């Protein structure tokens, strides 16, 4: 940019090499360096994010209640205890199962809605709004609604009893066998709208001529979806997989507000366990070690998904 501006027509060329050097030096002095501009952002990100991560790493080596002035250093003992903690492994199992179920169903439903709403459907805007509205509703607002809906004397059981399916009525969030599926259903209800929007946008980028060519070649709707649209939106699927995986690792609000991570730890996730350890039980060092493990798992998963997505693209 600087060189271009120096050679703009109408400007007098430097009369000598020394004069040009002086001019360049003067320009360097006058041009702002990048550092001052990025300092506020650097301080914010470095201070508030990376410093906190480092501090959490330090706390994870302590036996500390978060308040007392004399924490005890325990080295890697917190990590050793975590690996022997059955509740931690339960939380990991729930997270993995939660990710698989919610990702598969959200992807299926979101993709299906996107395909349907790309067809010439009447009042499509209304459907779009209906599908997307749950995304903008705060879990804290919806949690009491779901607690009531799935309560033993709640609306779901009422409906079941009034359509002749009373035998299926049960305390959905009050028993270990159904509490986790209920949390999954709520999550799918809430986030399918986002999956739908991303697929809807991605499908808008699919080359029309390819679709037309496929139709001329005799491909039906299912074949077109499976062989053209689905591969074309792979990038979106990979992005959603990363978001879902990280979301599953961070899951906290719905299980905490609806089931308090119970009953009998049936809906315990890493997020709820960290909260319980920090706030309710004062084991801040242990909770920090859990957080470090959570961070590492999240990073490994995100990198893994990215690499898998890239390899696939290269092969294709």
């Amino acid at each position, binding site marked *: 940019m600087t060189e271009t501006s120096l050679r703009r027509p109408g400007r007098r060329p430097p009369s000598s090499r020394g004069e040009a050097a002086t001019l360049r030096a003067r320009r360097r*002095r*006058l*041009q*702002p360096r990048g*550092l*001052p*501009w990025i*300092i*506020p952002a650097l*301080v*914010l990100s470095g*201070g508030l994010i990376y410093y906190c991560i480092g501090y959490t790493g330090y706390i994870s080596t302590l036996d500390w*209640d*978060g*308040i*007392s002035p004399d924490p005890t250093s325990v080295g890697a003992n917190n990590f050793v205890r975590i690996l022997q903690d059955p509740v931690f492994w339960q939380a990991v199992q729930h997270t993995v199962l939660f990710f698989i179920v919610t990702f598969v169903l959200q992807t299926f439903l979101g993709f299906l809605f996107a395909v349907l709403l790309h067809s010439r459907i009447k009042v499509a805007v209304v459907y779009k709004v209906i599908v997307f509205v749950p995304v903008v509703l705060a879990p804290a607002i919806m949690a009491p609604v779901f607690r009531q809906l799935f*309560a*033993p*004397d709640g609306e779901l059981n009422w409906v079941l009893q009034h359509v002749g399916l009373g035998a299926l009525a*049960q*305390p*959905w*969030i*009050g*028993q*270990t066998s159904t*509490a986790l599926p209920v949390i999954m259903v709520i999550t799918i209800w809430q986030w399918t709208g986002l999956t739908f929007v991303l697929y809807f946008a991605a499908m808008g980028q699919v080359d029309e001529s390819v679709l037309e060519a496929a139709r001329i070649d005799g491909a039906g709707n299912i074949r077109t979806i499976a062989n053209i649209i689905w591969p074309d939106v792979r990038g979106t699927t990979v992005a959603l997989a990363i978001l879902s995986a990280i979301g599953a690792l961070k899951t906290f609000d719905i299980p905490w507000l609806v*089931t*308090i991570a*119970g*009953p*009998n*730890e049936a809906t315990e996730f890493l997020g709820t366990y960290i*909260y319980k350890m920090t*706030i*309710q*039980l*004062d084991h801040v060092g242990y909770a920090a070690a859990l957080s470090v493990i959570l961070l590492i798992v999240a990073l490994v998963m995100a990198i893994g998904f990215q690499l898998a997505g890239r390899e696939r693209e290269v092969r294709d």
Partner: protein
Amino acid sequence: MRLSIRSRTALRSLAVLAAASLTAVGLAACSTGSSGSAGSATSGTITWEGWTPTDTATAKLYIDAFEKQYPKIKVDYKLVNISDWVAALRPALASGKGPDVFDMQPGAYVTQFKGFAEDLTPVAKSALGADWKSKIAPIGISGLTASGKLTAMPVGSVYAGMLWINKDLFDKYGLTPPTTLAEWVKDCQVFKSHGQGCFVQGAAQEGFDQDTLQSIANSVQPGLWTKASKGEAKWNDPGIVKTLSIWQQLFSDGIMQSGAVGAQQYPDANNQFLTGKYAMVMMGTWYTQYTTKNALTAALGSAGTSGAKTFPMLPIAFPDVAGAGNTSEMYGDADFGLAVSTKSQHRAAAETFVKWMTTSKIGQQVVADQLNDIPSLNGVTPDFTKIALVDPTSQSQPVKDLIAKTATVTEPREALLSTDVQNAILAAAQSTATNKATPQAAANTLQQAAVAAGQTFK
């Protein structure tokens, strides 16, 4: 974009200033020092945060009476649900932006928050004299004292170990309150046959599960629960195993409502009992307030049934579920004390409020008349001539008997239990309730957890 030398210098200065400000903000946030000035003792605005009184109308009565005597001190009460209490208070106090006065409960809360509470011994001495300890219920002082420091002044005490029943529902179906496990099961069968809920408990919350377990344990072997809490008996003692076995029976025999392990005592069980969906609930003396018309009407409104008909509720002894002939004794702690934050900017006014609430006869009389707490100041009793019960004929004597009985209680409720042990008790209760563990296995796990939590046993 180009800048002059002057603006470039200014930019650098700005950047350095931004960095310095952020650092300063960070350091300020991390600062733990206490504030300097105590402010005026007779004027100012103070904030009081607590999980109890559980309805703001009761708190307002206390505050109105206080402000009548100290018109220049304004008290703002903020009610926080007990399940959110630690999460809300901890960062508030740590940041220095917390309340001036906050509720304190014996046991785990004292351990957690004693560092943020002023030693109120001088306040007690100035109000009641050198022999102040003899003028306050001892159960309040011991539970709120840690490392020789009086972390809070006790407002009143609460006791548990009884059930509350809806008299109208028992009368409607011609039932008598249960005194044994078999009668309890039978009552529930009758209620259920009429589509009426029987007993409701929020078994997802440890504090209330502990109440039921302690009552069962007292039926099995009086005093065993307290012994285990003190480390004089193990948590896998045969008596505790039997306690867990009977607890499990409450679920398998249909006494506990369906889905109890997923329900919370507040708001779920509380609302369902108050709205008449269930006929019995396990609550303590704090529920005495709902024998009054005013408090019950307000509570029904909070439970989402504004305009609902009030009903007389009665306390009954916890049934002899072990069949060993032991009437379950009550147990109790200071319900709550009022602590003054070390970081308060209005410590003097806060101390005035705490002193008035806990040591003045007027303040304690207001507390007594709400029937939420048994007042901690000796000699103060509820003035029943001013208290409008829902049905004085049926309620008056049982309520008076209950209050009189509390004077003889010696067993603590939660004061001896750490948060880790309480968490382990909840795990044992839930694992047996959901048949994920046998009573023996759950008791063994509880014992291991208690040892791991640092509890020592003889």
